[in-house]
């Protein structure tokens, strides 16, 4: 062994990279992605009910090319999750659904925010690893849903 380092993620990126992480998290949690808010309103008749919004810790969505109020809408049965950018530039996750308690919705929003952060970090790490010509020796999802990536390189 040489060193073991623990890193706390910081999610600072442009909207396309955030969108990719949202799509990854949605796929992992069985949520359907709607392209726009309008599409979600027209195609899915979700009775919104209560809603809870959480903020992604250490996040910033870079505002270039991003229209105010733009957000991604995800649905699963009566549940709706909206991911957007607030006026301070932070990434927000809002969960809503009829017949669900605030506590339940808070848990859903927190879980989604965590999954999204995990996907964001995974995408960044893999992109960087490939660009530096590392060999990916192994990649696996562990029982606790963590992702373990083993990479290797040869140095003269």
């Amino acid at each position, binding site marked *: *062994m*040489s*060193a*073991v*380092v*623990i*890193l*706390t*993620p*910081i*999610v600072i990126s442009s909207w396309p990279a955030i969108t990719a992480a949202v799509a990854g998290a949605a796929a992992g949690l069985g949520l359907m992605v709607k392209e726009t808010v309008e599409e979600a309103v027209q195609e899915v008749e979700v009775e919104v009910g209560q809603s809870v919004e959480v903020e992604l810790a*250490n996040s910033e969505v870079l505002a270039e090319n991003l229209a105010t109020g733009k957000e991604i809408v995800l649905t699963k049965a009566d549940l709706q999750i909206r991911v957007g950018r607030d006026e301070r530039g932070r990434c927000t996750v809002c969960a809503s659904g009829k017949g669900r308690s605030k506590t339940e919705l808070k848990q859903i929003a927190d879980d989604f925010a*965590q*999954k999204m*952060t*995990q996907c*964001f*970090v*995974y995408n*960044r*790490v893999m992109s*960087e*690893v490939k660009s*530096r010509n*590392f060999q990916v*020796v192994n990649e696996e999802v*562990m029982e*606790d*849903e*963590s*992702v*373990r*990536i*083993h*990479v*290797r*390189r*040869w*140095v*003269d």
Partner: protein
Amino acid sequence: MAQHDVEITISQTGEVRVHVKGVKGKGCLEYSKWLARIVGRVKDEQLTSEYYEPETKARIDLKQDLNIEE
């Protein structure tokens, strides 16, 4: 040639554990600096016996390869 292995574990919350193997001396920190730059900030760091072994010239090459700024 030396084999450098890096095991990267991304937890459910997005926290990342980086385990560098096979790098003698301070060279192993170049890998953690590189990953810290793309992931976020260092929360904890544990150095192991290999860290205190004589360093090889690979450290300078790693800095250049990984574009790490001082």
